[in-house]
């Protein structure tokens, strides 16, 4: 069966520091991968999605970036964190083939910027 892993679960970082959040999927090949940010009462905001290695689409301009160095690995990064980057970050995947398949989420990273 397929599983998705995110780490770390919790992260506290100072303003201006760099960021690297990692997500990996097991048990499937060539998945579509997604990064979301979830703010209380505001739903899920799609940040990036990827349909293959090195292929990244950005949905919201900001100081975050994403990379997909391997088929089942998705990384969210920042060179300099802002206070506004605090939030709950979720990684998700869908099968690469087959339209309309639902997304499956990891357990998220709670990021606090001080």
């Amino acid at each position, binding site marked *: 069966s397929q599983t998705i892993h995110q780490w770390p679960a919790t992260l506290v970082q100072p303003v201006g520091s760099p960021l690297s959040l990692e997500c990996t999927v097991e048990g499937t090949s060539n998945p*579509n991968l997604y990064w979301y940010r979830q703010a209380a009462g505001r*739903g899920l905001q799609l940040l990036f*999605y990827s349909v293959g290695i090195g292929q990244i689409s950005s949905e919201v301009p900001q100081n975050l970036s994403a990379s997909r160095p391997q088929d089942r690995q998705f990384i969210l990064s920042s060179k300099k964190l802002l206070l506004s980057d605090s939030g709950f970050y*979720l990684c998700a995947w869908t099968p690469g083939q087959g*339209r*309309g398949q*639902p997304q499956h*989420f*990891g357990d*998220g990273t709670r990021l606090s910027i001080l």
Partner: protein
Amino acid sequence: QKEVEQDPGPLSVPEGAIVSLNCTYSNSAFQYFMWYRQYSRKGPELLMYTYSSGNKEDGRFTAQVDKSSKYISLFIRDSQPSDSATYLCAISLPHTGNQFYFGTGTSLTVIP
């Protein structure tokens, strides 16, 4: 207009009650409908997935889709304290795998 609207609640019910959670959506082109359950400090967990009008049942959970009214519902029968969570509806388009739209979530508390 948002693609999908969901009443944020909070909703509080006694154990054993029937719970009804609802979402409306704006575009009749949406064809795939999902419900997720999210416990505090966890990621959303897929609960129900359907792509047609009508009802889909899974244990105590029933998902209902009314495409003519652009209305989707999740019913929980014999609610349990373990059902206390935030429930998110989600919809997607048929021609792309990358466009999902989520409701803001309804917070449910089932009181023992």
